[in-house]
């Protein structure tokens, strides 16, 4: 390779000057504004898409409910597991001809919703996402793993901690003297699923605080200042969630809520890229 050829290549491959950055940025800025603009659709197009997504969701739900029939006896076992032994040995009762049947299908439906939830969530997101800006999309996708994760932890906490304590307290209270538990399957399943659902929702507190901080609704620094109100609110919410009037059960829900508030403060201080689906 002669030096001459290398020099010729250098002369050929190098620009004599570089355009000013402002000129480049003007073009880039205009292009990325178009990239970021939410997709605009007519009302009819929106309705069309909504119909298509609803049909897919209902299809997925129907298939999941059919599949759930296989698991329902097992789910029943799991729901009765946190109950005190007296309930397990005596069993649950039903007072109306339709009660057992309806409760059974209530559990089938809930299990089906659980199985279909990834599809339902995807369809809901796919409907919403095109209308969001890049920042909102990123926030949504980053918060998704946190939403699912905290909800699951909330349900696990309710199942392994809150429910056994609450049920034991309530059932023991009744058998101290003259009362015998005679619990219907409908009220038991309703009680257990309500507690589990609301524990899952309550555990979303850190995610809500994090998203609110990202959107600029709350300032992370101020959250610490609101602590005393948060503790009060935690005890009030706990009083509503827990069916028992005793402070032990109330504290059992309120203290985790407070801890969740503190986790929320920590999350709110983190940059977006360091939580959820963030990379980099």
């Amino acid at each position, binding site marked *: 390779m002669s030096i001459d050829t290398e020099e010729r290549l250098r002369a050929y491959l190098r620009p004599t000057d570089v355009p000013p950055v402002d000129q480049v940025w003007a073009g880039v800025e205009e292009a990325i504004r178009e990239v970021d603009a939410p997709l605009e659709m007519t009302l009819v197009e929106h309705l069309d898409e909504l119909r298509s997504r609803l049909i897919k969701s209902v299809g997925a739900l129907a298939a999941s409910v059919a599949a759930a029939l296989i698991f329902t006896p097992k789910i029943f076992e799991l729901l009765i597991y946190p109950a005190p032994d007296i309930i397990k040995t005596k069993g649950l009762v039903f007072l109306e001809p339709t009660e057992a049947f309806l409760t059974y299908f209530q559990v089938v439906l809930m299990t089906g919703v659980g199985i279909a939830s990834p599809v339902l969530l995807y369809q809901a997101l796919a409907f919403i996402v095109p209308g969001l800006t890049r920042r909102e999309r990123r926030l949504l996708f980053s918060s998704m793993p946190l939403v699912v994760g905290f909800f699951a932890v909330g349900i696990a906490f309710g199942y392994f901690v809150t429910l056994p304590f609450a049920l034991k307290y309530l059932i023991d209270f009744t058998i101290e003297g003259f009362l015998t538990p005679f619990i219907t399957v409908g009220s038991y399943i309703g009680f257990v699923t309500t507690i589990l659902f609301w524990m899952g929702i309550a555990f979303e507190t850190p995610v809500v605080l994090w998203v609110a901080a990202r959107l600029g609704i709350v300032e992370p620094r101020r959250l610490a200042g609101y602590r005393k109100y948060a503790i009060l609110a935690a005890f009030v919410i706990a009083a509503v969630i827990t069916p028992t009037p005793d402070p032990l059960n109330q504290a059992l829900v309120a203290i985790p809520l407070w801890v969740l508030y503190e986790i929320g403060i920590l999350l709110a201080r983190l*940059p977006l890229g360091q939580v959820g689906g963030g990379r*980099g």
Partner: protein
Amino acid sequence: MGVMEEIERDLVRRARDGDQEAFRCLVERHHEQVYRTAYAVVADAAAASEVEQDAWVKAWRGLDRFRGEASFVTWITRLTLNAASDHRRRHARRPTEVRLDGFDVAERPAAWRVEERDEIDRAMRALGRDARDVVALRYGLDMTVPQIAAALGCPQGTIKSRLHGALAQLRRALQTGRDTEGAA
């Protein structure tokens, strides 16, 4: 990690959150390198500007996929090479047009002529994409073999062999061109 890397990571993070000002800072930091990379492949001022804009827009769209395994400059260099390659492919069937804009005669060797550009242009077009990228980075940006290897994510041995093969091919093509010209 150095302060500059930390600043860059922060800019990338903010840009990924949708902060256009942070993205502008990234454009300002790497504009020259991106433009020179684009130019080294397409060898035309207007086309290089188009390619650069394309590369930045792709970077903006793809920030979520940038995992920070390589440095940002490596990532944007690869995006630019891809954008330049796409540009060449799109314009491959159009007749070769030798542009005189951005061509300062005073700064070029005396022997430099429009025909010479045309001749090198033809020789470069005959190279495969991999070889052309290596030649572009080596002679357009004066990058060393280890730097090119890092930018393209290939072993140094591969870069050396591509460079060697490409130069041999270019030398033959340019020599043949001269011979033909001489004979005429």
